[in-house]
């Protein structure tokens, strides 16, 4: 037998090919848990082909099919379908559940039955051990109960499946299933005791020592506390508990030892007392079991010192009583604890007792006595060796006897040649000779001392250092300890060592010491202090620099995503790289090659133009900003300023000119009058020669049909509505009312009703024969103004609302002439200039004194902050919602001035007196024009003042109210074009761009209130800029002045007035570098 076979696995024991996997028995759940486990398996989806119905527990109902069936107590109709499932399908579903539950239980139980060792089949040693430990009957009963339960569960499943075949409703199926699972659980629950017992057995079995009953074994036995376990601990590494009291060892312990190159197992047994077998307890019985069934060498321990508490005769008596168990086993009697009492110290009676043990041996096998002392470890090895030898002999003999050895013997060849007595080493003669020559001994070479020995010799560890060169074989042994040059980078380091370096260093140190001695300590502090001060200053400077740099970096406006500096590569570099590796680099530049444009705005463009004429031609012409400015520097300053303001805009995310902008999200004209017809009301005021007759609100839908009826009868619409109002929309009564009042006054057919004067939403207007609602102009009642609504087909009036410019017209009045007499003003020249499309410049409009007064007044207001945006003493156009007519327009324009309105007709807010005077003068001029040419001019109620704050403030090119072009035209000629042809006609009339047909601003009068030293045709004045540039006779639609025939720059000289048609003339205020006041007055015309 080879040692390999002996390697006993501690988890399992191999005996005659059968493996006892006591440790691998699976845990047995308690019955209660088992009941839960099995239905839990349903949840795991182990149930094959289940519906999408949640599986159920035995005790628990679930939602599934049943949920479809409202009342579970009422069975479904015979053979009916539940939730669309056939009854057969439902049946099979529930059958499967029952069967699944049964198989699950079955598997569990089968596993238990299979895994637990069957006492009749296992080795008698284990069988007896089990009997001793767990009681064979109890064990068998438990397993039998499990088996019985398994059968019961099977029976239940069978029975219920059979019954389920006749179940005719889901409810029945489900209840049967429930009952089946319940009954199964009940029967399993009854297993409680058996299962818990088996679980205990399982745990104990797993912890049993893995004793291999077939292998070489030594069994230690004897009375308690005689030193069995001590012996065990000496010979093996089992580490059994040893205590100085009896029955320390309560069960079998196994230890292993190697002897004769094979593994042996040593079994330590609990002590045995000398009494009949029946009286032995289970602890003793385990020892007896081991002795009875294991073919092993027995080591019977006797404590001759009697320290164990049992006298020698008792121990011998035990030997005699259990002697039959030692039959056919090698027996050694260990006389233990000789350190306490020697064998020689025994009395003759005692010796005789011991001898009696020897005599009683069986079969003539000798009994061996060994004196041992476990405390001193004396005689232990001898006993062990003897025991092993005896057993091995016995086993070999047995094997030979049973023929088991034959199979080995046939394969072995055993020679009879005996080995020679002596075999000295053979050393060749040549070697011997050579040795002789070297003076070495001729026999075996004595080995050199080991390095360790040398170390011990030469002072031991820590003192001794290994001589690495000792064994070097060199031409001359003297070279061994020569210094080896250190070479670095091919140079000998020694060559570079200055031999005087130490001396030089010493000198330097000396010098330094002298210097140190010279300079005093205080001096040192001064130097350090100075240094620190300098450092502090430098630190501050540096920190400021950093701060500045940071500020500049943050202040920079970035439009694009920042590219890391390293990643930024020039196109040329990429090109070069690509060409170098042989790729086509033509596409790298792409668009940038063809459209290389300089980003700088002023100087570079000119430079480019000189270089490439063709490129210049293709360039779209940009308006030069330097034109009109006194110098290039000024232009650059302006540009810088512009950029600065833009930067702030961009940073704050403000609206810029490039942003999409909708002038008015809800323009009033588009929303007014579009009220749904049933909610529409019309305020009707009946007037008779200017005095109000009656005033009421007419609800349109209720009266509509009646009104139509009445008007078709020939009544006037207003009368009809009035009648309807009084009669509460009753047609018959209204008719009676009318006929009684007017004696049935019929209007002749074809004759149209006269122009009526109405007031709609506080606006005086009238309805024309064409059915248009026409605004009545102030003082011009007979002449209709612009159309503000119309009569609809059903006779009702549709008021389309007032726009800002309509208000301007409506609130206008005839210019008053009586205010001032003398004017240096020529109406004819005005007319001529206007017809040319140029502005009329009226110098000497006011005297220097008047201008000075007005300027002082304005300046004072400005200083108080009353002429800036947001102030209240004028109506700040940009801030005030109500009065700000052009507000929307202004927002989109590049306009830097602050502008506001005064009521120049005596309302509030009123301008200062000197300023009012100037406004009135302008009004007089308008009156003159009206009277001279019969122009229907109306002065607006409001006058505007604009302040350019002299920081490059400008007003870009514009026409007044230009944006109205984009709005719906509303002209006296008609309303919206009804057909495409009409629209075409309209377009032809108005010109290509559509024109500004609703622009009633006929003339714009500007009066500059500036001191002559600020503006004028001198160096300072030119530098201050602020001129009014007029693009004379530009084409309509041109907003940049490219088509201008002539440019006219007008200085904003104090006392100068300018009259021009602002709606047609493109004009611009150039950047002003001095504060610039300008009064504006508008004159409107209804046509």
């Amino acid at each position, binding site marked *: 037998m080879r040692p390999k076979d002996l390697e006993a696995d501690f988890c399992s024991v191999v005996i005659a090919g059968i493996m006892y996997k006591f440790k691998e028995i699976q845990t047995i759940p308690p019955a209660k848990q088992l009941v839960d486990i099995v239905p839990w398996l349903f949840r795991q989806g182990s149930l094959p082909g289940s519906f999408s119905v*949640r599986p159920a527990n035995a005790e628990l109902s679930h939602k599934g099919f049943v949920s479809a069936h409202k009342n579970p107590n009422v069975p479904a109709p*015979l053979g009916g379908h539940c939730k669309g499932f056939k009854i057969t399908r439902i049946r099979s579903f529930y059958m499967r559940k029952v069967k699944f539950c049964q198989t699950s239980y079955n598997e569990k139980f089968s596993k238990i039955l299979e895994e637990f060792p069957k006492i009749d089949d296992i080795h008698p040693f284990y069988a007896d051990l089990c009997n001793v430990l767990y009681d064979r009957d109890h064990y068998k009963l438990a397993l039998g109960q499990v088996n019985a339960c398994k059968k019961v569960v099977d029976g239940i499943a069978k029975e219920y499946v059979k019954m389920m075949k006749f179940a005719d409703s889901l409810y029945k199926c489900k209840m*049967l299933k429930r*009952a089946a699972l319940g009954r199964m659980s009940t029967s399993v629950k009854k297993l409680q005791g058996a299962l818990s017992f088996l679980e205990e057995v399982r745990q104990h079995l797993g912890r049993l020592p893995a004793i291999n009953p077939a292998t070489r074994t030594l069994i230690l036995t004897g009375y308690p506390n005689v030193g069995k376990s001590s012996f065990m601990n000496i010979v093996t590494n089992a580490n059994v508990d040893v205590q100085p009291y009896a029955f320390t060892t309560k*069960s079998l312990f196994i230890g292993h030892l190697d002897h004769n190159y094979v593994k042996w197992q040593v079994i330590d047994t609990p002590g045995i007392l000398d009494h009949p077998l029946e009286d032995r307890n289970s602890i003793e019985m385990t020892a007896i079991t081991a002795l009875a069934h294991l073919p092993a060498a027995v080591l019977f321990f006797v404590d001759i010192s009697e320290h164990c508490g049992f006298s020698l005769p008792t121990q011998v008596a035990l030997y005699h009583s259990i002697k039959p168990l030692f039959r056919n086993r090698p027996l050694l009697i260990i006389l233990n604890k000789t350190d306490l009492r020697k064998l020689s110290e025994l009395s003759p009676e005692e010796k005789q007792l011991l001898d009696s043990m020897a005599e009683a041996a069986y079969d003539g096998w000798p009994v061996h006595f060994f004196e041992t002392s476990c405390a001193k470890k004396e005689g232990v090895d001898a006993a062990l060796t003897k025991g092993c030898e005896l057993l091995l002999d016995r086993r070999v003999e047995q094997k030979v006897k049973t023929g088991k050895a034959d199979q080995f013997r046939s394969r072995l060849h055993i020679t009879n040649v005996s080995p020679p007595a002596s075999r000295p080493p053979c050393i060749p003669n040549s070697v011997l000779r050579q040795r002789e020559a070297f003076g070495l001994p001729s026999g075996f070479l004595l080995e050199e001392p080991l390095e360790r020995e040398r170390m011990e010799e030469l002072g031991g560890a820590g003192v001794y250092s290994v001589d690495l060169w000792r064994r070097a074989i060199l031409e001359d042994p003297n070279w061994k300890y020569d210094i080896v040059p250190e070479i670095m980078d091919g140079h000998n380091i020694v060559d570079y060592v200055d031999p005087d370096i130490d001396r030089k260093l010493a000198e330097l140190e000396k010098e330094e010491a002298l210097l140190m001695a010279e300079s005093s300590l205080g001096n040192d502090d001064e130097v350090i202090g100075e240094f620190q001060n300098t450092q502090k200053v430098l630190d501050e400077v540096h920190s400021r620099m950093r701060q500045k740099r940071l500020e500049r970096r943050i202040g920079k406006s970035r439009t694009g995503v920042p590219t890391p500096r390293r990643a930024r590569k020039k196109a040329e570099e990429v090109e070069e790289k690509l060409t170098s590796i042989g790729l086509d680099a033509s596409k790298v530049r792409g668009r940038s090659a063809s459209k290389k444009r300089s980003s700088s705005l002023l100087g570079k463009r000119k430079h480019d133009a000189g270089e490439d004429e063709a490129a210049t031609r293709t360039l779209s012409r940009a308006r030069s900003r330097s034109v009109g400015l006194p110098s290039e520097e000024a232009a650059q300053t302006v540009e810088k300023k512009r950029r600065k303001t833009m930067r702030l805009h961009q940073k704050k995310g403000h609206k810029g000119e490039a942003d999409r902008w909708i002038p008015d999200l809800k323009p009033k004209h588009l929303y007014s009058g579009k009220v749904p017809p049933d909610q529409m009301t019309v305020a009707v005021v009946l007037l008779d020669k200017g005095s109000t007759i009656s005033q009421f609100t007419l609800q349109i839908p209720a009266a509509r049909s009646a009104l139509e009826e009445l008007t078709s009868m020939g009544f006037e619409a207003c009368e009809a509505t009035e009648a309807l109002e009084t009669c509460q929309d009753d047609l018959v009564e209204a008719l009676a009312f009318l006929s009684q009042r007017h004696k049935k006054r019929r209007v002749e057919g074809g004759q149209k009703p006269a122009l009526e004067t109405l007031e709609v939403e506080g606006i005086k207007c009238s309805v024309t024969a064409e059915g248009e609602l026409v605004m009545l102009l102030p003082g011009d009642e007979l002449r209709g103004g612009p159309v503000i609504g119309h009569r609809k087909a059903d006779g009702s009036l549709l008021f389309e609302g007032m726009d800002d410019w309509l208000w301007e017209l409506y609130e206008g009045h005839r210019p008053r002439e009586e205010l001032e007499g003398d004017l240096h003003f020529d109406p004819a020249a005005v007319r001529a200039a206007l017809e040319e499309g140029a502005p009329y410049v009226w110098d000497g409009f006011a005297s220097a004194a008047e201008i000075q007064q007005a300027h002082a007044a304005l300046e004072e207001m400005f200083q108080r902050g009353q002429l800036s945006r947001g102030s209240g003493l004028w109506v700040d156009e940009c801030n005030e919602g109500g009065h700000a007519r052009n507000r929307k327009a202004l927002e989109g324009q590049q306009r830097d001035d602050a502008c506001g309105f005064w009521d120049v007709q005596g309302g509030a807010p009123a301008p200062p007196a000197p300023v009012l005077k100037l406004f009135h003068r302008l009004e007089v001029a308008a009156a003159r024009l009206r009277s001279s040419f019969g122009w229907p001019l109306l002065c607006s109620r409001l006058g505007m003042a604009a302040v350019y704050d002299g920081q490059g403030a400008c007003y870009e090119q514009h026409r007044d109210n230009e944006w109205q072009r984009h709005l719906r035209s509303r002209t006296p000629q008609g309303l919206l074009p009804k057909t495409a042809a009409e629209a075409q006609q309209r377009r032809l009339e108005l010109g290509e761009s559509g024109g500004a047909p609703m622009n009633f601003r006929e003339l714009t009068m500007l009066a500059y209130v500036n001191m002559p030293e600020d503006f004028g045709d001198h160096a300072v004045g030119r530098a201050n800029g602020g001129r009014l540039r007029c693009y004379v006779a530009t084409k309509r639609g041109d907003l940049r002045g490219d088509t201008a025939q002539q440019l006219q720059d007008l200085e904003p000289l104090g006392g100068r007035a300018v009259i021009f048609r602002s709606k047609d003339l493109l004009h611009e205020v150039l950047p002003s570098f001095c504060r610039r006041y300008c009064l504006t007055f508008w004159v409107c015309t209804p046509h």
Partner: protein
Amino acid sequence: MPQNEYIKESIKRFGRRFDHEERMRKKKAREPKKIAKTARKLRGIKAKLFTKKRYSEKATMKKTIKAHQEKDAKAKDAEEVKPGAVPAYLLDREQVRRTKVLSNMIKQKRKEKAGKWQVPIPKVKAMTEDEMFKILRSGKRKKKAWKRIVNKVSFVGDNFTRKPPKFERYIRPSALRFKKAHVTHPELKMTFNLEIVSVKKNPQSALYTNLGVITKGTIIEVNVSELGLVTQTGKVIFAKYAQVTNNPDIDGCINSLLLV
């Protein structure tokens, strides 16, 4: 080599780890939180099982606490008046209770007499024929519908032989034939699994009685010889009536109450 009580052994030899007590204390202290967390987490059937278990645990705990509290509570007054105690001045008088006993006996007798014809379930829900029978179509084209399959549990005697198919109107499937019933003795409060002798009466209809159909409320005759009941005269009773108390076709078994 771990063998036998190696864990105990190890503890004996090397002791516990130094912070064992602390860890145990903490573990114990954390236990309620852990349980609470589990309770919050669990869903479905696991949760149901868990709560049920926990409920029972808590109930036992409360009971134990209460029991312990009772110990501390004041003992009842030992001087309590026992029933039947009489004041001293009445002690010498003779107590007459016979009338009372007599009337009790009469009452008992009456009760017995009246109860003889009373059954535990006096009324049952009527069943339609649809529920009771399933129509079995016969004939070559499955066009005839005169055969019926009994859908309910039935009792068929030992010596029953099926009629030829032509004459067999009612079929009692063998899966639904029951031979035994659980019979509870109301006085003994015990249940026995006894053989059915016959179906005495099915309250639904005489037809069902004839067919041996067993539904709720049916009176069946069971073999009680095992019980060893004797009549007043000393004869052994072999069969007794019992009333079915459940729906056998739903529960899969017959539960009945012995009529005594």
